[in-house]
């Protein structure tokens, strides 16, 4: 049996959460932040936050050159995923989940590809044309390309 509540308190007791928060607040931003990452052939280097939302909510299906968009995400409860949603999309993981569910179960869209680790995310993005996902900055290598989200653009 799986008891996520007990597990989450075991892995992240209150004190640990507090220290994580303190460390997060006092370390440089780049040390913990993620970047949007794409397959090297994706024809953009910068997108607005609203474009990023359209991509990750599975609303936008193709890049401007016609390549189909393939979205990779970690599980809803993964701290990297939660952090990515909040900081880069300005959304909460549960809002994203709700949007996907409504699309999938009303026939108006599809769910993103779920991966279980950052290594898997990197490997799949590097070999899938049109792929988009996110990685911690320390995990980015030359097999993928990071792009910036321009929050001020719109």
């Amino acid at each position, binding site marked *: 049996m*799986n008891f*996520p*509540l007990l597990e*989450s308190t075991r892995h992240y007791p209150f004190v640990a959460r507090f220290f994580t928060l303190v460390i997060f607040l006092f370390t440089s931003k780049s040390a913990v932040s993620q970047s949007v990452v794409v397959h090297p052939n994706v024809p953009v280097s910068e*997108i*607005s936050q*609203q*474009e990023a*939302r*359209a991509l990750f*909510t599975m*609303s*936008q*299906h*193709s890049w*401007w*050159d*016609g*390549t*189909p*968009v*393939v979205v990779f995400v970690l*599980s*809803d*409860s993964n701290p990297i995923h939660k952090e990515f949603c909040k900081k880069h*999309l*300005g*959304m*909460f993981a*549960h*809002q994203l989940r*709700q*949007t996907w*569910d*409504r699309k*999938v*179960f*009303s*026939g*108006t*869209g*599809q*769910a993103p590809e779920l991966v279980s680790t950052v290594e898997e995310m990197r490997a799949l993005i590097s070999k*899938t*044309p049109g792929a988009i996902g996110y990685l911690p900055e320390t995990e980015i290598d030359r097999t993928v390309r990071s792009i910036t989200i321009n929050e001020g653009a*719109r």
Partner: protein
Amino acid sequence: MTRFGDLMKAGFTGFSLIFFYSQQSLADWKDTFQYHGFISQNFVLTSENSFYGDSEHGSFDFTEAGFNVSLRPLSRLGLAAQVLYRRAGELEDEEVRLDYGLLDLTAWESPDVRIGLRLGRVKNPYGFYNETRDIAFTRPSIFLPQGIYPDRTRNLALSSDGGQLYGEYVSPIGEFSLRGNIGVPTADTSLERVVLAGNQPGEMEGKLSYVGQLAYDYSGGLIHLAFTAASVHHGYSPGLRDSLKEGNTWLEPYVASAQYSGERLTLTTEYLLRNFRSDHFGSSLPDRAITGESYYFQAGYRLTDNIEVMARYEVFYQDINDRSGKKWERRTRGLRPSFTNFAKDWTVGLRWDITPNWMARAEYHRVHGTGWLAETENPDPRKLDPDWDLFALELSFRF
């Protein structure tokens, strides 16, 4: 396999060349195949009155299951279909039906604007919850607010056999979307029972109907607003020795919806004004027009990522010119008590997402009035109790 695959590819290519300028390779279209499904089992217990089966003794007669497939052979062409199984006490017959089956064509796509067309059986955008009302994971509670989303007449405006035109526009202040469905609604016998007082020898058939929704999304769903208007038309084909003539019914609901969805707190409210008229059924069913109203306020709070509590107050009036139901009682010479014309429902509920695939819920309702209960489940209106409690449990699995 390959011949069939090649044939499919050729078909899709031809299709795309006819309708669009196809630009991308078809190499990876098979990778876009997805399937999803769900099953929910519910338990319903009421102090008085029946809802979803013999609930006074505890009813398990409420099961929902669905399975869907989708494919995106071209980035501008999507295909999707869902089969739905439902068992709902005496509310409607146990059935397996095609919930939706559609072809989704994107006519225009840019980072700011998307315009497209969906053809086939398309779910109707009505309020916040209609399109995925049977999927427990997407509902805010076990039972949707029954004034706006009545399970008694759920098939009235569930889906359209026809098409949906949609447009989305990303503006500097948020995202706007407009969707319009044109098609024939899927009629069923429950409509006959509600509109024509009992199962009649003839058949109610859906006629050309319209549903439109304008929605606004601020900051990825932090604020969500929607306005729905619809005109749903049905016609009656009399049977043998039928006292009814070829009558028509029109349902014209207007729904205003608003939601705030924060990290922990979600606040939702919806207001419905509903015009209903029927005419030309002959002398045994005089022409009538009635305007009903319903609204609710709902608050949800996530205590943790896995546990959410909710509370809701909902009001439903069958007739805004007779909110107390007294005229109704007089007109029916006491056969239909006043409280059958309205319902006021206090709800509290708890949701536990045990894993991403399993979810459990518990819910308690304190209801005054029986306005949204079905006559098929409560045949004798004099045996109805105006003040009743409802308790329900739900276990749901999805993949």
